[in-house]
């Protein structure tokens, strides 16, 4: 047989939906996804080439940030398309099987886990909320203060700058905590991610909050309105909303429910 050897990339698991992959998706490695059904569940998979995704190749390719970015985006695009049809339990990147039999076995062995996760995320979506510290304007020297000479004026100006900078930092962090707690009221669960480095976030301002929320779809409007309202109320942070996401942050083992 001349066909090159392939392995099975697992994107995620959804309910009984053999039609799940959206038509026209390229998928990881440019291979359109297909489904494998067992135990009343449907696995979304793709047949990827061993020479690129086999163990040795994978080890090498994962070191390549461009390859990783391409693969992560393809993995995400398939999950996003499936999530539009219904709940899907996303797999971590690079979950690979030698054949369909391995996938079928996993569906059967972990059927209860998958069903539990699917019922948790049904009719709910993940939303991301990030807050960036907004730098304060340079304080204007108070003309009311008695300045007895250039040295004193200089000292007053320096002190005002230091105070403003410190206050703004404290305000930004306090706002981040307040925003995180307030938005939790609209969510079923929440997770905190570490802040992203400025290069990655594409924003020069420091990130002070990087959170994910699991929100009932019927409350999505309320949730985004709350984000807009908080934006207006907290002037030391700038908020950014992303989503809806497949529920990546709410399916892993060891997840504890609810915001703290």
């Amino acid at each position, binding site marked *: 047989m001349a066909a090159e050897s392939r*392995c099975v990339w*697992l994107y*995620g698991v959804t309910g009984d939906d053999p039609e799940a992959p959206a038509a026209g998706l390229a998928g990881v490695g440019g291979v359109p996804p297909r489904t494998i059904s067992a135990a009343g569940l449907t696995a979304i998979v793709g047949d990827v080439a061993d020479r690129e995704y086999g*163990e040795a190749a*994978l*080890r090498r390719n*994962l*070191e390549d940030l461009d390859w*990783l970015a391409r693969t*992560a*985006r393809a*993995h*995400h695009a398939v999950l996003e398309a499936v999530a*539009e049809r219904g709940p899907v*339990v*996303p*797999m*971590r*990147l690079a*979950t*690979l099987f*030698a*054949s369909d039999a*391995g996938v079928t076995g996993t569906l059967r062995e972990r059927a209860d886990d998958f069903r539990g996760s699917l019922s948790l995320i049904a009719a709910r979506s993940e939303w*991301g909320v990030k807050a960036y510290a*907004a730098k*304060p304007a340079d304080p204007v020297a108070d003309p009311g203060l008695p300045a007895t000479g250039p*040295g004193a004026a200089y000292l007053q100006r*320096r002190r005002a700058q*230091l105070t403003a900078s*410190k206050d703004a930092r404290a305000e*930004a962090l306090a706002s981040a905590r307040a925003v995180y707690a307030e938005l939790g009221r609209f969510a079923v669960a929440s997770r905190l*991610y*570490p*802040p*992203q*480095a*400025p*290069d*990655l*976030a*594409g924003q020069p301002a*420091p990130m*002070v909050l990087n959170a994910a929320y699991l929100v009932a779809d019927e409350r*999505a409007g309320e949730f*985004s*309105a709350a*984000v807009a309202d908080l*934006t207006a109320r907290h002037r*030391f*942070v*700038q908020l*950014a*909303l*992303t989503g809806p996401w497949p529920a*990546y*942050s709410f*399916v*892993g*083992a060891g997840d504890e429910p609810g915001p703290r």
Partner: protein
Amino acid sequence: MTQPSLGAPESGALSAGTMSGPQPANLGDILERVLDKGIVIAGDIRVNLLDIELLTIKLRLVIASLETASQVGINWWQADPWLSADAAQRSDRQELEEENRQLRNRVRALERGEHDGG
């Protein structure tokens, strides 16, 4: 699922209290989710993502995770005076030392001025 409307995305510089959302998923948002979250299943091909040294180091340069980044010493937010009280104190102290030095120079200059004038 629909994208809620939150007004036109802001273009240009950040300013306090504004919001540019919902945004298209950026690479960082995707990577932190697909690498750090999602169900972990031991497939037939076992490559532990965290065993891949270069990947890990590169990612930690871009996705600064609090615990992991501290382990490899890439804890930018702890050194950022905006985010760390310690760093802020260090930064303030440096500024005060510099200020002190400038003031001493100024006093010395003034003293010299008096001697020259007297």
